[in-house]
C-alpha cells in the first residue's frame, strides 16, 4: 500500500462502514415483527399480527373505503378489531388465516392495517398466500 493510496483505502473502509450502519438502521426501522395483540395495542410501531377471521365480523364501509373485521387469536381467543383502508380482497371470507401489517390506533381503538396477507385453504401448497397493499 503506497502512501498515496492509503487515505483512499481509509475512505473506502469508512464508506463501507457507513453503509453497513445505514443498512442496519434501515433494517431495524422497517422490520415488522410478529407480535401478540396485547403488544400490538401499545401502538408504538408498525407490526404484524396474525389470526383467524371472526365469522360475520367483516363489513365494508363504502364512504371510508375501508374494511372492518375482527381477528381472533387461535391460541388465546383474544379479539382484535382491524380496519384496512382498501377494498375487500378476493376470497377474504374463505381465509383460514389473515396477517395484517400496520399499527394500532389508540383513538379509533382498532388496528390500522396497510397490508393484508390472506391465506386461503388450498390443497396445492398447504396454503395459498396473497398479498394486498
Amino acid at each position: 500500500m503506497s502512501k498515496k493510496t492509503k487515505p483512499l483505502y481509509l475512505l473506502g473502509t469508512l464508506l463501507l462502514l457507513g453503509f453497513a450502519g445505514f443498512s442496519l438502521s434501515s433494517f431495524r426501522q422497517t422490520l415488522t415483527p410478529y407480535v401478540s395483540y396485547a403488544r400490538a395495542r401499545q401502538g408504538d410501531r408498525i407490526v404484524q399480527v396474525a389470526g383467524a377471521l371472526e365469522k360475520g365480523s367483516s363489513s365494508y364501509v363504502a364512504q371510508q373505503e375501508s374494511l372492518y373485521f375482527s381477528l381472533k387469536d387461535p391460541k388465546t381467543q383474544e379479539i382484535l378489531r382491524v380496519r384496512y383502508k382498501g377494498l375487500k380482497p378476493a376470497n377474504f371470507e374463505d381465509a383460514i388465516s389473515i396477517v395484517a401489517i400496520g399499527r394500532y390506533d389508540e383513538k379509533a381503538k382498532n388496528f390500522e392495517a396497510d397490508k393484508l396477507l390472506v391465506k386461503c385453504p388450498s390443497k396445492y401448497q398447504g396454503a395459498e398466500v396473497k398479498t394486498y397493499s
Partner: protein
Amino acid sequence: MSYLSHLYVPGALALWCALAFALTSLWGYSLVLRGDASALPFARRAYGFYVLSMVMVATIMAMLLVIRDFRIEYVYQYSGLDLPTHYQFASFWAGQKGSFLIWLIWGTLLGLLVRRGAGKSEAPVMGVYILTLLGLLFILVRENPFVMLAQTPRDGQGLNPLLQDNWMVIHPPIMFIGYASAAIPFAFAMASLWRRDYDNWAARAFPFALGGFLVLGTAILMGGYWAYKTLGWGGFWGWDPVENASLIPWIFGTVMIHGLHLERTRKRYRRANYVLATLTFLSVLYGTFLTRSGVLADFSVHSFVDLGISRWLIAWMAGFALLSAYLLATRLRQVPTEPNEDPFLSRGTFMVLATITLLACALVITAGTSAPILTRFMKSPGQVGPSFYNQVNLPIALLIALLLAFVPYLTWKGDVPRAVLRKLAGPAVFALALAVAAAIWKVRQPFHLLFLFLAALALATNLHKTVAKYRAGGLRGAGGYLAHVGVGVILLGVLASSAYDDSTKATLEMGKPRQVGDATLTFTRVVPRRGSEREGMEIQVARGGKSFTVTPRMFMNDRTRQLMVNPDIRSTPLADFYVSPIDFDPGQSTLQLAKGQSGQLGDIQVRFERFDLEADGNALAAMQAGKQVTIGADVVVTRNGKATPLKPLYRLSPGSGQVESVPVDLPGGGGLAVAGIDASNGAVQLALVGVQTPARLSVDVTHKPFIQLVWGGLYIVLLGGLTATVSRLRQARQVDRAGETA
C-alpha cells in the same frame, strides 16, 4: 419391502439407475485422478448412461402426466382431467419434487457441456460437478416423485389456477437452467483449488459464468413480466423472498463475471474469483433452502410449505459450504496474485469499486430476505418490506451509475483527471438536458434528479463507447459496454415507473362514468366467456382526448372457486395505463336491516323502524294457539327525497312451516317484500322487486410512466451479455488450442 410397493417401478428404477451410474462415473473419474488414465472412457461412458437414465426419468414423468395416471401421487396432486395438455408441462414443475427433477435434468445435460469445456481438467471438474448433482439426486431418491397412491382416484386435484398460464410453462424451466448452471463455475473453481492448478480455470469457466448470467437474467425478466402482465401484482418486482432467491445469485454471478474479466485482463482478483464462484453457487442453495423449507411460509407470497425436506436441503447446503470453506481456507493463500499497482483513476480500480458495491447490494438483499431467520431468536420474529430494499439500494444504484459513467473513459494504465473530464463533457450535457427536462415534467426531488443525471450519464458514456467499439471492430469488444447502456436505461425506467406512478383504487358502477385521475372510466359490460377466453370486464376509458377499451379478466376457477384476476394494460411507448380488477359485485336486491337501521339500494333508502306484531291480530297469541302468524315490518322508504311509510307483511304457518310474503308497491315503481326474519337479532331481510343495485367493479388504475425502459433496458443488458458470451467462447477455445500445442 412395503416401500417398494408404493413406487411406480419403471420410474423409480430409472432414478436408481441414474444414482448408480452417477456414482460409477464419480468412481471412474476418481480412478483417473489417481493416475489411471485408461479409466477416462469408462467414467465418460458411465456419465453417458447417467444422462440416459435421467432422460428416462423425465420421459416417464412427462408420460405419466400426459396420460394422466392418477395412481401416481404427483400426477394426482398437480394434474386433472380438465387440464389442457400443454399445461401438463406446467404440472411437471408445479410441485416441489417436479421442480427439483427439472433442475437436476438441466444440470445433468449441462454436464455434457462441462465435460467438453473442462479440457485437460475434466476429471477433477467433473468429479466436483457430479457431487453437486448428487445432492439433488439424493433428495429426489428420498422424496421419490414416483410414489403411488393405495387406490387410483378418478380425477386429479388439478393444477393451481395461478399456474395455468403460458408463462408458467416457460418461466420455471429457464430459471432452473440458470440455477443448474451456477454449479459449473463452482466446479471449475473447486477443482482448480483441489488440484492446485490455479491457471486457466477462469478462462474456461468464463463462458459458463456468462451463459448462466444470461439465462438467469432472462428468467428474471420473464418472471417480472409475468407478475406485471398476468398476475396483476401491479409491479415488476415485489422484493418477495422467491424473487430475491433468484436475484441474489444473479448479482453474485454479475460480480463473478467482472472478477473473471479482471483476472483475464489484469491478473487481478485471482483469489477473489474462487470466493465469488462459491458465493454464486451457495446463494442458489441458500435461496432454495429459504423458499423450499417452509421457514418463510408466513412471510412470502409464493413460498412452499415444508414437505419434510428441509434437513436434506440443510445437509446439502452445509456439505458444500464446508467443502468450499475447507478448500478456500487451505489453498487460497497459495494462489499467486500480483500486487495492486493500479492508480486510483484507472479502469481496474473503478471495476473493483463497482464489484464491491454490487457485493454490498447482494449482501443487504440476502440479509433482508433472511430477516425472518435472523430475527427468529429474538422475542418476535419479523420481516422487512419493500421499503427496506428500496432504501438501501438507492445509494448503491447511485454509486453504480457513477462508476459506470466513468469506466468507458478509463484505461487500465491510469488516466489524468482532466482528460477524463473533458471526455465526459459531451455525455454530461446530454444527462443535464435530460435532468432539466425531467424537472420540468415532474421530478422535483434533488436525490431523484441526481439519480437521473447519473443514470443518464452512464447511459450516454457507455453508448458512446459501444458505438466507437462497433465502428472499430464490430460488436466483439462492445458487449460489456452495451450491457452497461442497458443498466442506465433500467435505472431510468425504475425511477420513473416506481417513484412517479400514480395509482388510484376506484369502484365503478356499471354504466356510470367516473373520473379516476386524469381519465374517465365507464364500466360498460361483463364480457361472457368464449371458449378458452375467460370472462372479462369491459371498461371504456377516455383520457387526454383519446378513448379506448380495456378488458381486464376476472373469473372464478371452476374447481377451486378461487377468484382469478388478470389486469389489462394499454401500452404506449411512454407509459402504461394499467387496470387491475380487485372486486366485482354483480348487484343485489336484498337488504338485511336491524331495528332502527337504514340501508341504501339503488336510488332507494329504506329504514326499518320495528316489527308490527299487531298487523293482523296479535302474533304472539296466534303463535301460542298454533294458528297462522302475521308479522308486519314497519319501514320508511325514501325515494327522490320523499319519505313513505310502508308495511309489507310476512305470514307463517307454524304447522306446515309454510311462509307467505305480501309485497307492497314502492312509490315510483317496483315492490318491497319481507324475505325473512332473523328473530334472534331482531333483524329483517327485505327483498326489492324491480329495483336492483347496479353491478359494481372495483379496480386499481395505475399510470406507469416510462415502464418500457425497464423491459428495454433488461433486453439491452442481455443482448450485451450475449455478445460478450460469444467472444468469450472464442477465447476459451483459444485457451484449449494453446493448451494442446504447449
